């Protein structure tokens, strides 16, 4: 089968590889109908995530048809021929964490937990196509994929909703939604969102669905004006940090107290025009810093006292100079985590079905899987107004 394979930083290629096989007795094989490139895939592409090996298959946002089931799969939960979306964290359904709906913290799906334990203390769940830190699972930017615990992970999708409307239930829609939902948004709240990439776009729309009074979206108008435009389409007020001071604008908008909720949908490869952003650039280029938390620092600084800071943006390691003093002294509540996708799929599917949101708005480019390397390049460089790339594995 064809698969998108990581070779080296900035080098991915489509290769012919063997089809996946059932390895454990509760596995399933899914034939993929749509698969996407995620912003966090760019961290792999850029070489920011350690424990990658040449030849690893990428991709954790995919959906398709169940082709084969292992012998011990509970067939009352899933059948061959079912159309499913597959959440990106791999869960067992039986451990302490899964039982508490902390699906991305599953104890039992990382085959090599000792690697992540060194960095994090305890290992989170396995993830498809996201380095050997999360288990080294073959990913879903391919024609077929093996899905463990087939009676727990795949989520059935009715046939009347096309792929474009539901594929983002695998990652970015629940990610944006969880980031907003964790903040207990009130009807008089101002929610500020850093980053208008695909996750940021879903954060904005989720904040409105959850009743925010106002949503302010922040990004760089000089490099990605299309993203600010897409944010305005959702009803957000935008701040272009290339031209304006984010802190001053937010302060002015909120009568001097700052936004109630601040959401960092940027993560470890933030960019900016300030001294701390330059510091991060230099240090990461010299491999002396693992992440560039410029947006996070700004979010902490801008958040009102007693407000909530939500961090869906992915970080890997040990960034420098986090204003913990500001965070503590202002009494911020911090909410974060890899998305517990399984928890949110039913309610978000219902919202899609009711027409409250059509997630396909975020798609700007559709490519055949064979052109995926061009998709990565375009997404990385934000060329051609690229915001989200969906790949078709059948071409």
């Amino acid at each position, binding site marked *: 089968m064809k698969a998108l394979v990581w070779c080296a930083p900035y080098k991915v*290629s489509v290769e012919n590889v063997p089809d996946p096989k059932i390895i454990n007795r509760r596995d399933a094989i899914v034939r993929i109908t749509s698969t996407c490139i995620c912003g966090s895939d760019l961290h792999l592409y850029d070489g920011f995530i350690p424990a990658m090996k040449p030849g690893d298959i990428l991709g954790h946002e995919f959906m398709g048809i169940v082709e084969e089931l292992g012998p011990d799969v509970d067939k009352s939960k899933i059948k061959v021929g079912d159309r499913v979306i597959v959440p990106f964290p791999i869960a067992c359904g039986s451990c*302490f964490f899964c039982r508490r709906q902390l699906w991305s913290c599953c*104890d039992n799906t990382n085959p090599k937990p*000792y690697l992540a334990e060194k960095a994090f203390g305890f290992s989170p769940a396995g993830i498809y196509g996201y380095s050997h830190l999360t*288990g080294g699972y073959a990913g879903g930017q391919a024609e077929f994929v093996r899905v463990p*615990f087939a009676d727990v992970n795949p989520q059935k999708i009715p046939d009347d909703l096309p792929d474009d409307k539901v594929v983002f239930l695998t990652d970015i829609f629940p990610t944006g939604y969880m980031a907003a939902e964790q903040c207990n948004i009130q009807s008089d709240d101002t929610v500020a969102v850093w980053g208008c990439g695909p996750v940021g776009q879903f954060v904005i729309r989720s904040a409105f669905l959850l009743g925010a009074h106002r949503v302010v979206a922040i990004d760089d108008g000089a490099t990605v004006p299309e993203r600010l435009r897409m944010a305005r389409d959702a009803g957000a007020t935008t701040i272009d940090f290339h031209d304006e001071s984010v802190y001053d604008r937010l302060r002015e908008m909120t009568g001097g107290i700052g936004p109630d909720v601040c959401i960092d949908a940027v993560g470890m490869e933030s960019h900016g025009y300030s001294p701390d952003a330059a510091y991060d650039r230099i240090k990461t280029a010299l491999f002396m810093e693992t992440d560039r938390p410029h947006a996070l620092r700004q979010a902490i600084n801008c958040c009102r006292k007693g407000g909530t800071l939500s961090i869906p943006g992915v970080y890997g390691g040990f960034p420098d100079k986090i204003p913990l003093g500001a965070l503590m002294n202002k009494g911020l509540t911090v909410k974060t985590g890899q998305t517990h996708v399984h928890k949110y799929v039913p309610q978000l599917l219902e919202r899609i079905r009711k027409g409250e949101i059509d997630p396909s708005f975020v798609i700007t480019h559709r490519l055949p899987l064979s052109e995926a390397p061009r998709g990565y390049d375009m997404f990385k460089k934000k060329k051609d107004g690229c915001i989200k790339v969906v790949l078709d594995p059948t071409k």
Partner: protein
Amino acid sequence: MTLADRPQTQDVPAGDRENRRERPRFARGIRSHELQSPAHERRAINVAEAERAVSVMAGSILAVAGVKRRGLPGLLIATLGGGLIYRGATGHCDVYESLGVDTAGAEAGAIAARGVHVAESYLIRKSPEELYKFWRNFENLPRIMTHLEAVRVNDDTHSHWVAKAPGIAGGKVEWDAEITRDEPNTTIHWHALPGADVDNAGAIRFDHAPGDRGTLVHVMLDYIPPAGQIGRLVAKLFGEEPQQQIKEDLRNFKRIMETGEIPSIAGQPRGACTGLGKRRTE
């Protein structure tokens, strides 16, 4: 004679298999009290003897200097001195503990340094009864311990174990074992009988965890190769990182019991590129 009753003796020379009935002091067995106090209540000694003496001396000097000096700097110096005295007196250093350093271990004797000692705890979402039942039938253990090839249970307390040892002529090591303590649903202790290729002892305890968390399982395993085989035998049995390998095997126990399987990526597809422009030939 129970595990705890075995006499303390020094190590015996290699080849003296008859005398191995008297074990090295360290391998006397898992003393029952070691399994009784939860890990978080034990303040282990992790500072070596000589280092402790230096700690007390240096701490005393600093404490006196700090008291004489007065003011905030004096207070800080005296506090540091006090900390060093405490560290020397008790043998426990919090800094070492947080760094995972143990200089005392190095002094526990050459015997200890040769072996593999693993103590691990896992929370398993099953009842003590289910877990005890699985473990009590030692024939189940090769399913979770990758270094075991087979275990044959002969009677209620005796069993024969075979472990893989690819680096050794014959490809395996074997021993007979007996259960020395068996409290149903609570604890099992066992050890290898004299004549074992690799001396070893193990113990497992099952405690009800609070709420609906299941069971807190504590396992201790010790493998001691015969004198004269420093490190090599252990590496051949367990690979380069024996401690880690056994810890992962014990994690397999949790995974098998909670989900019925051990996660794996063995045999999954991958690409052939080996970096920039090169390709791996299969």
